[in-house]
């Protein structure tokens, strides 16, 4: 029984990480209709910022606080200068953002070398309930993910800014006619998506350690999750991330990890093939 709870907790915390990565990807895909191939590298950058702050002798949590802002700002600059040219053409956007990601990844690789660098957890130890031990940091990740999800939902559903975002999502032409600057909204959304990825990177770096190809794995997983969940809504990518994250964490408990890893992708692709609109097909929040 105890083992079951520990396993469930492992699955939950991994699912939370995937949700965090996918949320940004999903928001960008829903809003602008493009898949941001540099999203994995935004995760990497978030991790790198945390590492830099840590190695400068400052506390780790400060780095984690800074990461979303730094990555978000970079995302904003990239959107204004480059990514905005791609909106009309999803495939060109894929290739263009892939090139951006390649540049970021290789620069980071040059900066850290081919090393695996570890960053300590700001909160070590574990929480004990009865005979079960839960790593504190993983609990924190689950908690922050929940907060971010609630925050994003409230932002989209309850604020005037969220209304503008939803308006530009649903009908860009009409939104522009009503005096909403969709271009500014797109910039803000892209920055927000990038910031979420940065936050994800900052939170997971103590668990996965920092290496140049950190983002690549999350990128493919994130894409599949967004497609499974369905583009165009807030709930879709979150649901997809939940499913993919849970499967990816749960299957290795019952079968060899290599088969489990591949099986998740195969199942997801088959699912998308027969239900292209995804789990949640409605638009809106």
């Amino acid at each position: 029984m105890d083992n079951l709870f520990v396993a469930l907790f492992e699955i939950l915390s991994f699912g939370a990480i995937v949700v965090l990565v996918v949320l940004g990807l999903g928001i960008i895909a829903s809003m602008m209709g493009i898949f941001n191939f540099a999203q994995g590298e935004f995760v990497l950058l978030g991790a790198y910022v945390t590492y830099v702050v840590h190695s400068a002798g400052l506390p780790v949590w400060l780095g984690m606080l800074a990461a979303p802002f730094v990555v978000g700002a970079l995302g904003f600059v990239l959107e204004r200068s480059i990514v905005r040219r791609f909106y009309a053409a999803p495939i060109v956007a894929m290739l263009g953002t892939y090139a951006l990601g390649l540049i970021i990844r290789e620069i980071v690789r040059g900066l850290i070398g081919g090393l695996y660098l570890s960053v300590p957890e700001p909160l070590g130890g574990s929480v004990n309930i009865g005979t079960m031990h839960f790593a504190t940091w993983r609990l924190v990740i689950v908690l922050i993910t929940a907060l971010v999800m609630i925050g994003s939902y409230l932002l989209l559903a309850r604020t005037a800014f969220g209304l503008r975002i939803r308006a530009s999502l649903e009908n860009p032409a009409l939104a522009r006619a009503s005096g909403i600057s969709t271009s500014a909204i797109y910039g803000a959304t892209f920055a927000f998506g990038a910031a979420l990825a940065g936050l994800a990177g900052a939170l997971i770096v103590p668990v996965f350690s920092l290496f140049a190809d950190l983002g690549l794995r999350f990128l493919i997983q994130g894409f599949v999750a967004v497609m499974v969940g369905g583009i165009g809504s807030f709930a879709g990518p979150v649901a997809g991330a939940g499913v993919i994250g849970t499967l990816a964490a749960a299957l290795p408990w019952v079968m060899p990890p290599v088969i489990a890893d591949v099986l998740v992708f195969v199942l997801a692709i088959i699912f998308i093939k027969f239900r292209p609109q995804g789990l949640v097909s409605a638009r809106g929040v």
Partner: protein
Amino acid sequence: MRRGKTCEAADRPMTDTTQTTTAKLSLGAHRSRRWQVLPLIEIVVLVTGLLLPFVLKDYLTIYATRVLILCLFALSFDLVWGYAGIMSFGQAVFFGTAGYGVALLARDLGVTSILLVLPAGLLIGFAFALLLGGFLLLGRHPSSVIFVSLGTLTGSYAADRVARGWYYLGGQNGIPSIPQMNLGSYDITEGPVYYYLVLGILLLVYLLCRFLVRSQFGLALAGLRENEQRIAFFGYQVQRIKAIIFSFAGAIAGLAGSLFAFHEGFVWPNMLGVVISTQVVLYVLFGGSGTLIGAVIGTIAIEAVSFWLSDSYQDIWPIILGMLLLLVILFRPAGLVSLVLSERERVGDFGRPPGKADRGSS
């Protein structure tokens, strides 16, 4: 951007495309009077390829052979993306599985005759492409471009993972020391002999592709690349055409993969993975997708610069590559060849159905 048009095409007014069509038709009438650049480039590349082993040192000939094999591989990607508009982010699956296939043939069954292994590689590539392409492209729902690119990317990632974890395939290390390919009792070793073999195959495949994309079938391909919906309304089986060209390209990738496996003497999981898959995308985009020679030139250019920089600047080369790619996508979507090749000639004209008279200019 050209791709931009493709995606918005459904919303565009009819007149726009009508103009393009008339422009294409009038091309035929002018073509005899125009001085053509494309054949000239092709001949220059071919002659350079023929003469290269005489001026290069031995180890460079071996490197050049590898580049030629990659050219063959790039051709296969150019066919699916540049001509049919199918974004295959997993072309390495066919390259790699064929490489692994012939490596297993050589290791376990001792089959190394060139007359058997190359067709085997071709078939393996074809079969896998038919399976993957059939699944992704055919079916009741027409697949979105995003789905196909994601599906192929995932396929490539999954194949890489399987190869890494499967002991029979050598796991992380792959299959080392594959015996040499032979013809009768003659071993085909790396060097000028292998070089000319690859060059011959490349030339053959190139001519075949050239014939294909300039035929009526090529016209249908170009049509569905530009506006899939309209071609479907004309009564073409769009999905089936896509699956055919995808499998054909898979066969070429398989041929390249088997040549690569015997040339290098070993196969390893990276051959299947995302890295090579995206590498080939870079080659073709850089050289110019939608022209066959663009794929060849792009491969040669990138590999040559990479070799040249490998001594001193190996670390920053990928960064430069990324920036070059970004610049090409932003400012030269038609690639390097578009610097010397006019848009007219790049689009080209197509074989006419037999028995129809020339319609003349509009």
